[in-house]
């Protein structure tokens, strides 16, 4: 039973983290981990001007914030559900598009995240400066 238990747990954990075996994969996995929260911050910052999914995707990519469409679209929905974004369908053009805009609560959260980002940056600078 214990063995089975270990196998089950281990398989699930492996599947979730997809442990890479070589260095490139390892770096990519850690970079992804490090950047995860920054997409939220970037989206909340950019969407102070209303925008739709694909435009935001291109904007973020253009500014060096690599994000997968399969991450970004569900993220926008989640942020809307959390009240950080508000949306509106724009049917003026040929193609109906859902325009998202950062809500006041979203702007407040983005501010808090940004403050923390700067604090982390400062902390890491101090830490690396202290290193021999």
């Amino acid at each position: 039973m214990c063995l089975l238990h270990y196998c089950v747990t281990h398989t699930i954990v492996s599947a979730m983290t997809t442990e890479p075996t070589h260095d490139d994969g390892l770096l990519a996995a850690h970079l992804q981990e490090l950047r995860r929260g920054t997409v939220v911050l970037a989206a909340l910052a950019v969407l102070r001007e209303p925008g739709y999914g694909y435009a935001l995707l291109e904007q973020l990519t253009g500014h060096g914030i690599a994000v997968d469409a399969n991450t970004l679209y569900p993220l926008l929905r989640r942020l809307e559900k959390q009240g950080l974004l508000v949306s509106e369908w724009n049917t003026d053009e040929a193609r109906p598009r859902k325009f998202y805009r950062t809500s006041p609560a979203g702007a407040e959260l983005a501010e808090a995240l940004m403050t923390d980002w700067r604090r982390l940056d400062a902390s890491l600078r101090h830490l690396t400066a202290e290193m021999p």
Partner: protein
Amino acid sequence: MTSPAPSPSRPTDRKDTRMSTLTDRYVYAATRLVQSEDERKELQLELRERIEDTISALEAGGLDRESAERQALTDLGDPLRVTAEYRQRPLHLIGPRFFYMWLRILVIAVSVTAPIVLAINVLVAVAAGETVGQVIVGGFGNAIAVAIHVAFWVTLVFAVVERVAPDSADAWTPDLLPQLPSGGGRGRADLIASIVCLVIFGALLAWQHLGSPFLVDGARVPILDPALWVPELWLVVGLLVLEAVHAFWVYRAGWTWPTALTNVALSVAFAVVVLPVLLQDRLLNPAFVQMQGWEDWTGTGTMIVAAGVVIVTVWESIAGVVRTLRGENAGRA
């Protein structure tokens, strides 16, 4: 389809109907299982927007429309997975919240029921005079069948709970820690006694029906009224299984208010099932009573048994509460 109509002002968008059907099929596949119509329409519009935008971008990159559409849908991936991510539906059967609770209950339920079924089957088969081979094959076959059943239903219940339970599931607290093994102390003795009693009781129940030693014209005469199997006796069997699970719980958690109150509930449930049968004198098989010539005695007999059931129920209920008050939940280590 409730999809947004492609603008007639841009006919180049839909030159080939076969191409648009691929997107249509994707959107349909992704949203057909969404129950709420509002949500489905919204999802359809969102997916269509995303697909069309992706196609346009790929076309701008030099692909023809057909391969752009194919590429866009390939990048999107399995439609059901996309929808699940959009709707924040779990992509697992049982997640981290309930995984260990599920595992614990699965192990307890299977390890309680399978041996009981095995014991009952072996007793019945032996009483029926079957060969050793038949006894073993039949017993283990039924035990495995019951284990599979129990595992399936437990898992099904957890899979449903995973999807309907609100996020604030009961948090783990240190009170849930099991007692240290007490080296055959009181807790383990209680547990073994309970399980043995329950197995014997369950076995007797099956034996009186299937292995009754009383024969009329070579046919076995069950001691209890066969009409009671549905639903009373099955309820009793169910309660026996719950009692066994409860015994394990008491062994792990000691006597606490939850275990004591569950104990009261189980005792009362047993009385509720059994007492009406006794009071209406429906317990014994009329054929068996007639055979023994007990017609004049059953009324008195069942009343005495009913009184016994009441006393045992009250005793059981109070005993659990008293042991909780005495604090027999700690210090056993």
